[in-house]
């Protein structure tokens, strides 16, 4: 998408120096004022609010704050500003629908609204979870590619490469990123979906060079695939991330901008995080010439970065509603689960994220993910993705009122252990890994949760 590529490049080193601490600590007082001015209120009983007027006010608040505050750049300590007219020039000219992938594996993204019966895209995959390299990595990716509800595949992170530690800015990191994407290509080919679009934030790319190195028609990211470029929390970026975006865009690779507005962080309570997140969505979309923004609110009390806290769900929902009602620019919902594969909790969490995303006008994923590293390598499977995908299809067209009811019921199931979830299992323990067949025990849990949801009124086919 044509963003404001040159305006961004020109403005990253203009204007007065702003110190980081000053930039950070001035956010909270201001978003508090804006929350009052625009009457934005969090309500724990409604993680999916049914209030069009509030969604529209949130969009307006985000616009006002984006224009006023701008995006701080780490390398120069300057602030990039855009006018409201410039922001609208980007949003109004955003072209949809958009088709991704190749041949028979193509998928199309249509603009959606809250409660819309237009199918969301489901971006399924480990989205950064740690996994064993090599053949096991390929099996993980095949496991996701083989889920029929999966429209686009997202990568996991190899925990090491060629048996060696991965160091940022090292030759091994570049090698690792190239391997990683090569394995995803192999996995989609072996799964019979060679043209499946890829949505990649290479795990071996803490630095920009490996991200740049993976663009390669033959065995890497192709034109029309997606690459991640994150913003820094809150309302910040740096040359590293902007370089990824410029490289991707100029090579015909779509940019997905990830943002992580934090509840309890610089923006304070859920209302502040929502306003900040809305402003970040606009600034990130433009600075990165993005095709989609992926929203990942983080809660200060959840170390694993799960997106399933009640307050996080609310922030996801209101930002999704605000954007889908006021422009055509698509928002995806990062799905990060606190529990691990093999547990009931992980399934309830996957379901709730799908319910919130789809009923609020968004697309689902990338996800499910959440695993940080350490001992948790390989604790993810295609079954969570199946819950995410099938629930996304079922929720399509559902009213927010009904969706909220279901979300609250799911919350009751996992909220008591959120932040301290039961231990999970590895893919190797849950599946016959050679044949990639799920074992009966894990499948039975899936069926049980799905039956309960169906009983509550989730219209699964």
């Amino acid at each position, binding site marked *: 998408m044509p963003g404001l590529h040159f305006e961004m490049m020109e403005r990253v080193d203009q204007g007065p120096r702003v110190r980081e601490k000053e930039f*950070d*600590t001035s*956010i*909270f007082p201001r978003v508090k004022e804006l929350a009052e001015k625009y009457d934005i209120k969090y309500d724990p009983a409604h993680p999916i609010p049914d209030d069009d007027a509030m969604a529209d006010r949130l969009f307006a608040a985000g616009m006002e704050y984006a224009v006023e505050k701008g995006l701080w750049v780490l390398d120069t300590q300057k602030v990039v500003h855009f006018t409201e007219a410039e922001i609208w020039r980007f949003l109004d000219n955003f072209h949809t629908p958009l088709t991704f992938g190749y041949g028979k594996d193509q998928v199309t993204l249509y603009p959606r609204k809250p409660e819309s019966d237009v199918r969301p895209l489901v971006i399924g995959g480990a989205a950064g979870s*740690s996994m064993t390299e090599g053949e096991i990595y390929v099996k993980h990716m095949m496991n996701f590619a083989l889920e029929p509800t999966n429209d686009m595949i997202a990568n996991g*992170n190899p*925990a*090491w490469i060629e048996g060696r*530690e*991965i*160091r*940022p*800015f090292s030759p091994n*990191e570049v090698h690792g990123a190239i391997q990683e994407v090569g394995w995803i290509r192999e996995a989609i080919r072996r799964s019979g979906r060679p043209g499946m679009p890829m949505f990649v934030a290479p*795990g*071996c790319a*803490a*630095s920009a060079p490996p991200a740049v190195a993976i663009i390669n028609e033959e065995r890497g990211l192709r034109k029309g695939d997606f690459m991640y470029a994150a913003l*820094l*929390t809150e309302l910040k970026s*740096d040359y*590293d991330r902007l370089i990824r975006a410029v490289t991707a865009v100029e090579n015909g690779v779509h940019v997905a901008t990830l943002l992580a507005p*934090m509840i*309890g*962080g*610089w923006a*304070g*309570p859920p209302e*502040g995080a929502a306003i900040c997140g809305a402003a970040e969505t606009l600034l990130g979309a433009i600075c990165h010439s993005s095709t989609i923004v992926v929203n990942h609110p*983080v809660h*200060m*009390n959840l*170390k*694993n970065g799960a997106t399933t806290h009640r307050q996080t769900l609310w922030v996801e929902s209101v930002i999704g509603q605000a954007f889908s009602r006021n422009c055509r620019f698509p928002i995806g919902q990062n799905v990060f689960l606190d529990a691990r594969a093999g547990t009931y909790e992980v399934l309830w969490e996957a379901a709730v994220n799908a319910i919130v995303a789809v009923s609020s006008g968004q697309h689902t994923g990338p996800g499910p993910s959440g695993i*940080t*590293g*350490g*001992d948790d390598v390989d604790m993810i499977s295609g079954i969570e993705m199946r819950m995410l995908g099938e629930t996304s299809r079922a929720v399509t067209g559902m009213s927010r009122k009904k969706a909220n009811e279901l979300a609250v019921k799911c919350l009751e199931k996992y909220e008591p252990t959120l932040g301290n979830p039961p231990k999970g299992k590895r893919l190797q323990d849950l599946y016959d890994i050679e044949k990639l067949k799920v074992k009966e025990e894990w499948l039975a849990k899936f069926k049980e949760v799905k039956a309960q949801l169906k009983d509550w009124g989730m219209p699964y086919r």
Partner: protein
Amino acid sequence: MNEKEILQQLYESVLQGDSAKAVEAAQQALDAKISPLKAIEGGMTPAIQEVGDRFGKGEMFLPEMVTSADAMEAALEILEPFFEGDEGAKKGKVLIGTVKGDIHDIGKNIVIALLKVNGFEVIDIGRDIASTDFVDKAVDLGVEVIGLSGLLTTSLPMMRDIIQILDDDGVRDQHKVIIGGGPTSQEYADEIGADGYGETAYSAVQLCNQLLGIAS
């Protein structure tokens, strides 16, 4: 203003994170011949404890805790020249940063704010910091504790490197090293010879107390 009112001013300014007001109140305390120790214990410490409590309960947020800690620091700077003996002294110096290649800093910022609230002098060296910079700065500033934060798997080798450099430079025994963030664990801390691992910001405070022999 009488003593009680001045202490109240100190209390409120720290609670509200108003540095200018805190500096003014500290000056008034000195003018009114209130001992620095009394100003701290009667006004500022209860305020910062309240901040810590409210933060723990989710009633106060990171930016408020940061500005309160700043107000406390600003007032302390005014009082410091008038300390007698070691009254009001900080518990110890802690240097904290996120290791090379890693830009995650939310957790690190929370750890810093909580350590400050708990009376440590904290130097924030930033994010994406070269291993040698950690060591050089720690030596220059004579810090007791080095805190390493890392959220990426690729951050783990950096932590080992830093301990190795401390060893190579012959200064390992002068600094305690603690680690935290997603991929780290007690086992990893043991493996690389770190002095402690903390799962949360609260455990970072406990660790520092423990390593410096301070009763919490």
